[in-house]
């Protein structure tokens, strides 16, 4: 006799899907469609007049050299933040995974920065590295290093990258640590018995077993740098000097919220959305193949 594990109820699966679908619709499709619609409009800040202008917002966007500059800035900023926050967090997680004496205290401290609001984190770094007020900028000055993020674009970029990385390390750390702790000790011990050194054990056993975690974090981190970092940039550099730290999402924020140009801002967010969807698709199509579940 064949045991059937197939439920023949057609209504139940739909019913179970409904809450998820409603949430996705209300919090993603609805706002996204609004953004697309708004990108075809020209509105004043108060929403008193609104005029359908077709693709004009996109046209004026793609003639701005500043917009291409912000794309390049985003590329540099996101790769630096993703690579640094992932690798530093992995390093910390492998250390925390060892049998340390005060491991729980160490872990708590590691997770703490995640609780800090991005803007607060930004202000913190701004004050530490302000060329004349900063406690950490002064030693640089004593060493005759002309540290000046207010005018030097590279210095400003270093500063926002540091702030964004610092903020994200905790999150990555948490996942890496959980991933490391789920790797069976016996596998590693077997490697050790076979004479593999710690580095070899890490790259041939631990890292491949961590690949699902790493892949997940890569996607999450890219989304983080694309969408979540404008608070940090706003507090640390305000997109300056001379636009060198204006990423695409910061430009959306600056033009839309600060500048009141809702149509142009909506067009930018649609472009940003397309880029992130494409990036995520590429990641799942090509990077995921290397992941061993």
């Amino acid at each position, binding site marked *: 006799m064949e045991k059937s594990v197939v439920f023949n109820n057609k209504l139940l699966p739909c019913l179970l899907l409904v809450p998820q679908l409603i949430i996705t619709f209300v919090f993603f499709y609805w706002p996204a469609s609004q953004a697309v619609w708004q990108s075809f409009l020209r509105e004043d800040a108060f929403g008193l007049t609104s005029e359908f202008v077709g693709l004009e917002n996109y046209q004026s966007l793609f003639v701005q050299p500043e917009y291409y500059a912000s794309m390049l800035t985003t590329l540099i900023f996101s790769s630096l933040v993703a690579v640094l926050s992932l690798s530093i967090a992995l390093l910390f997680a492998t250390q925390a995974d060892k049998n340390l004496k005060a491991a729980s205290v160490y872990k708590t401290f590691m997770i703490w920065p995640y609780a800090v609001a991005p803007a607060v984190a930004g202000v913190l770094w701004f004050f530490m590295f302000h060329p004349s007020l900063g406690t950490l900028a002064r030693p640089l000055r004593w060493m005759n290093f002309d540290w000046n993020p207010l005018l030097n674009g590279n210095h400003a970029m270093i500063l926002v990258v540091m702030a964004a990385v610092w903020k994200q390390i905790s999150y990555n750390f948490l996942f890496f640590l959980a991933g490391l702790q789920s790797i069976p000790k016996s596998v590693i011990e077997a490697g050790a018995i076979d004479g593999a050194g710690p580095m070899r054990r890490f790259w041939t056993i631990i890292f491949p077993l961590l690949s699902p975690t790493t892949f997940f974090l890569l996607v999450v981190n890219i989304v983080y740098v694309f969408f979540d970092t404008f608070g940090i940039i706003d507090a640390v550099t305000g997109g300056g000097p001379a636009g060198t730290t204006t990423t695409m999402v910061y430009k959306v924020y600056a033009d839309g919220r600060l*500048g*009141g*140009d809702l149509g142009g801002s909506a067009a930018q967010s649609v472009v940003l959305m397309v880029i992130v969807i494409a990036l995520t698709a590429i990641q799942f199509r090509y990077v995921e193949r290397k992941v061993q579940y």
Partner: protein
Amino acid sequence: MALRQFSAAAAVTVALALATPAYAVTEIQWWHAMTGGNNDVVNKLAEDFNASQTEYKVVPSFKGSYADTMNAGIAAFRAGNAPHIMQVFEVGTATMMSATGAIKPVYQLMKDAGEPFDPKAYLPTITGYYSTSKGDMLSFPFNSSSMVMWINKDELKKAGIAVIPKTWPEVFDAAKKLKAAGHATCGFSNAWATWAHIEQFSAWHNVAIGSKANGLDGFDTELKFNSPLHVKHLQNLIDLQKDKTYDYGGRANAGEARFGSGECAIFLTSSGYYGTAKGTAKFDFTSAPMPYYPDVAGAPQNSIIGGASLWVMGGKKPEEYKGVAKFFAFLSDTDRQVKLHQESGYLPITKAAYEKTKASGFYEKNPALETPLKELTNKEPTENSRGLRFGNMVQMRDVWAEEMEAALAGKKTAKEALDAAVARGNAMLRTFEKTAK
């Protein structure tokens, strides 16, 4: 026992409820961006007004920075529950003005409510900013300031500078002397860079920032601040930045602490910095008028104002507007303005309040507070110094600052940077013009 206490409390509550007048009190929402001591001033004003009569109740609420307050107000308007009174900083003026239907002009409000209102009682340099070209006052001036040059007298003395510099060449010389005397990282500096070196600079030298009386006469305005004088000034700053005789201090007012810490002995920023300077500076300081180029005919002209004004939002009930009008009349009272000016450091908005403070000898003891007033009233305002009113100004200031930063970092020449700032600004003005009609 507990029950008895409770019933006693309940009885008191009921008694109080019965004691309050039977008619409903009309609430007036007031959104503002004042922090610290000035937040207390706002709350005190509302308390005093509420205590002065029984019909209306002004409820102030703090909404964050100027830009945050404005955005919150706009968002609330779009959602259909705007406050009655909204404090908007001066660069938001054009956005508010163009929002016909979203705002209730103040002159109209006062007329409808029948409150005594004489636009001539206010300082013209202040009201000019918030009035149409016909002279109709659209918003109510509240906290106004101007830009002054703050001077660390102790450090100037140490560097052997006997007289406070008056002109830009004198400031450059003084900065070089200060640098030689130990101020290696900063001869002079400023906060609000575009306000100092573009907006105030233009008015002070009687040159145009843009056409159409700096936008006051219409939104079809073109920017003009890439004139030879502007280029010369920015080039001077670029040259001096190289060895930090001039040192750029960042956007907004972030750099102000460099004056209080003694790092920069000459510093241009808002006159509203007075309170902070008084609290932090451990040296003898004063304020002086902004410097000018002596070879520019007619300079110095007069300065323009900063700070914020109160806008009345549209679509409210007549009795609520009556309350707002009463509150504005209350704010205009001479004694109240005198107190406000002397406590907060902001300018008195009425002529009477200025005269009264002057007559009381207050400025002899606090000369730093009179400098901005002297600057504002230095000469009869011209087309170029009446004020400025450009749409998208909040965003445009950032673009101007970007170009200035590129120039000071040596990436662009002064001419290239100013041309780009003008071109990018004009593009924003065109966008605004299309929505403002």
